[in-house]
């Protein structure tokens, strides 16, 4: 038989340095009312269970949907005999030490009233939930309703829980009285215990309050929850000024506090005091909203109210002691913890001038990440270069451990045996309260002659990278100039690159015009007709100054006729005055303009063939009149 229980509470996750939320969904009650939620036991008996938790509430609505579904699917419940039974989890308790009383009503599902708990001096009752189980065996359904109470004895002595009356199916049933003995020795400590244990609480606990600089202070923050949360709680980690902090793996589990079952989300930290003093671990803050149901609301299962709790842990003062001066060994570089050391080389037989990697490992418990490199031994016949390091952390639930590896390159300079002495690494062991000097074993290198016979001609760096052992000499050439922005970053330089582009654009424009001239000469003439006509008139002006009246009028005639012919894209030789008048009239020219055209045309025509007929008109006036006429004709031509 399987029973759907209230969901496990969420684990406590957070981000350091800021308020964070508990990422998983809050504990909730899952109602397995739908057919798909029906589970089967090993015996193939379908079993449907409805579990309902109502912290702080005394009246609960049965899960109507589940029951209706079960009734619809499996028919009416069997007619079983109704029995009512009350039990406690223990009969001997402490004062203010809560214990659990359970009232089970078997054989009845619908119409079961809440038990009527009488007022009892010395005992406090708090309803902890009501659950309803439905079992279907061979098509016959049996139901039971279970009421759970947290009971607390507030005075020592013998107490009797009297009969509890329950109405089921219109009948009233009563439980047997239960005797409980409360002793003063088992007192609870939580505030408000008489009114029942709190639904949520948070507690911080430091494993040590008095440590040395660099010694670990284990810190645990536990979030206790036995309620249904309306939303994900937020968490602000404690202020840990004065400490270096490493996060340790947290966990979630079912636990208890003062006899009350809780789901516990646990966060763990390792704190390391950075300097002597009295730093205080600040409060961790959890804000959690506990869901509350409105009993009068039939939709309370969907729309819940919430009560928000802001929970803070107590500040924890810590005394950070300085490391003792007495016994501090030479070469101590601040390592605190418990460590072992190991050194190795990547090869023991090398040629002179060939690099060898010397590795030094520090492994143990402590703030491994901050360990300094060891004091490397002096090697007169070898060169040593810089050190690089890497860290491999291994965190357990209560400690920071790991390995820090330092690597350096040494280059033996002369053939023979090269002894790398043991490397000492002193540290302070806070458990033993003394300094310990761990030391590696010595390493012997067999150095053979280099390819050049000696090693001193080799470059001090990695072989093959250089063939000279020293830098080259300085330069005496004076080439100083004001510091300038690099050319690629100067906008002016790139602006100059527009010049060739402009040249290209000009070329393209010329090319385009040339192509137009070749493909549409009449169009080009039409576009430049007025300009051409004005040029002709200007030329005619020069003729007028020399007294060549006939030539002047001939030029005026030509300017006028060619202007019209070019604009109309016709041959000037075939253009007559009548034809011109006709076209102008079609284009809307008025009579006044036509008269001016006719007068100018005929006058020019007359004079160029009969110069004697030239009037006494000023040549300049003739030209300006013709110019104005051509300008006025432009919109009709």
């Amino acid at each position, binding site marked *: 038989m399987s029973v759907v229980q209230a969901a496990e509470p969420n684990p406590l996750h957070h981000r350091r340095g800021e308020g964070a939320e508990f990422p998983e969904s809050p504990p909730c009650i899952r109602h397995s009312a739908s057919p798909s939620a029906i589970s089967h036991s090993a015996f193939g008996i379908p079993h449907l269970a409805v579990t309902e938790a109502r912290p702080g509430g005394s009246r609960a609505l049965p899960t109507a949907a589940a029951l209706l579904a079960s009734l619809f699917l499996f028919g009416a419940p069997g007619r079983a005999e109704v029995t009512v039974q009350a039990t406690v989890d223990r009969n001997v308790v402490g004062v203010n030490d809560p214990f659990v009383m359970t009232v089970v009503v078997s054989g009845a599902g619908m119409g079961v009233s809440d038990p009527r708990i009488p007022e009892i001096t010395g005992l406090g009752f708090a309803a902890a939930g009501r659950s309803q189980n439905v079992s279907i065996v061979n098509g016959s359904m049996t139901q039971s309703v279970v009421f759970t109470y947290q009971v607390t004895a507030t005075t020592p002595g013998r107490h009797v829980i009297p009969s509890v009356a329950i109405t089921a199916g219109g009948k009233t049933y009563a439980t047997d009285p239960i005797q409980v003995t409360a002793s003063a020795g088992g007192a609870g400590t939580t505030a408000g215990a008489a009114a029942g244990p709190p639904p949520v609480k948070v507690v911080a606990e430091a494993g040590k309050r008095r440590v040395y600089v660099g010694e670990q202070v284990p810190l645990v923050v536990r979030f206790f929850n036995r309620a249904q949360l309306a939303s994900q709680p937020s968490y602000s980690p404690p202020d840990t000024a004065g400490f270096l902090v490493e996060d340790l793996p947290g966990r979630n589990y079912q636990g208890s506090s003062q006899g009350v079952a809780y789901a516990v989300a646990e966060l763990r930290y390792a704190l390391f005091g950075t300097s002597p003093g009295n730093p205080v671990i600040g409060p961790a803050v959890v804000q959690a909203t506990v869901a509350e149901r409105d009993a009068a609301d039939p939709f309370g299962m969907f729309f819940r109210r919430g009560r928000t709790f802001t929970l803070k842990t107590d500040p924890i003062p810590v005394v950070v002691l300085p490391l003792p001066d007495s016994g501090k060994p030479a070469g101590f570089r601040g390592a605190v913890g418990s460590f072992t050391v190991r050194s190795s080389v990547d090869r023991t037989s090398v040629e002179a001038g060939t690099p060898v990697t010397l590795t030094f490992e520090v492994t143990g418990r402590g703030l491994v990440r901050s360990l300094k490199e060891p004091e490397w031994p002096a090697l007169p016949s070898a060169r040593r270069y810089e050190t*690089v*390091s890497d860290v491999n952390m291994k965190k357990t639930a209560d400690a920071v451990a790991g390995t820090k590896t330092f690597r350096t390159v040494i280059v033996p300079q002369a053939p023979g045996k090269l002894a790398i002495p043991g490397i000492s690494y002193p540290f302070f062991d806070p458990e033993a309260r003394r300094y310990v000097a761990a030391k590696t074993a010595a390493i012997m290198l067999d150095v053979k002659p280099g390819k050049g016979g000696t090693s001193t001609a080799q470059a001090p760096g990695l072989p093959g990278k250089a063939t000279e052992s020293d830098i*080259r000499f300085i330069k005496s050439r004076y*080439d100083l100039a004001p510091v300038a922005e690099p050319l*690629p970053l100067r906008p002016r330089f790139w602006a100059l690159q527009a010049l060739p582009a402009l040249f290209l654009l000009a070329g393209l424009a010329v090319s385009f015009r040339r192509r137009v001239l070749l493909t549409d000469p009449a169009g080009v003439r039409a576009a430049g007709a007025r300009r051409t006509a004005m040029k002709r008139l200007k030329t005619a002006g020069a003729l007028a100054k020399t007294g060549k009246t006939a030539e002047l009028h001939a030029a005026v005639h030509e300017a006028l006729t060619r202007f019209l012919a070019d604009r109309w894209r016709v041959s000037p030789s075939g253009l007559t005055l009548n034809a011109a008048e006709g076209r102008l009239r079609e284009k809307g020219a008025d009579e006044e303009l036509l008269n001016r055209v006719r007068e100018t045309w005929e006058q020019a025509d007359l004079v160029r063939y009969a110069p004697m007929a030239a009037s006494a008109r000023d040549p300049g006036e003739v030209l300006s009149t013709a110019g104005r006429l051509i300008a006025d004709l432009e919109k009709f031509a």
Partner: protein
Amino acid sequence: MSALLLAFILSSAANAGPVSLKPTAPSNPKDEFVRANSAYEAGKFADALAAWEGLYARGLSGASLCYNIGCAHYRLGRRGHAILWFERARSLAPRDEDIRFNLSLARSHLPDETVPPWETFDRVLSPGELSVLVAILLAFLLGAAGFGALTGRDSGKLKPWLAGAAVALVVLGAWLALRARDLASPQGFVVAAAAEVRSGPGEEYTAGFTVPEGRRALLLNSRNGWVEIGVPGQGLKGWVREEAVRKI
């Protein structure tokens, strides 16, 4: 961020070296340069360095000056500074054999130093030379095209040259773009011996790893006397004290 970096760069330039030799009045730069060279030849490396850096602080630069400053730092055991100045010299005179050799020698002291294989090729031309080449190719191509359009002549025999110039322009243009990007992104070198790189800008943050003197670093951010650096090729990032790095 750029303002902070600028402040950092300026302060780096201002505090770039010792000040044991400080001229009281500005002298002829050439005389000063020759005098510093003489001091170096006499083994007075610190004096020579101060004089050369004084010239640099006066807004003067040149491949010889940067190279000489690098030599002086090397002699004084400051390999990080030496690499920094040799790099500066190489950016001005990329094909100078002495500069390349000294830089290679200084870098050979670095453990696990890996030089990208393309770097030797990449540094054959300086950014300025690349820019001029690109400008010439651009002018040649656009000019030839413009001239052809202007005169209406067919390019004819010039066509293979124009095609070659176009390909060269694309290649050099891409190369120049990459170099310009490098120039625009602040880079520097670690100048402190085994700088501890921390997870945040402060001593209270844990030291994750150390970076050897002379290692190239990207300068990413700056805050309260700390600089965030990235170590190219290793994917490492963290904060070091401002005085532990110098911008190229």
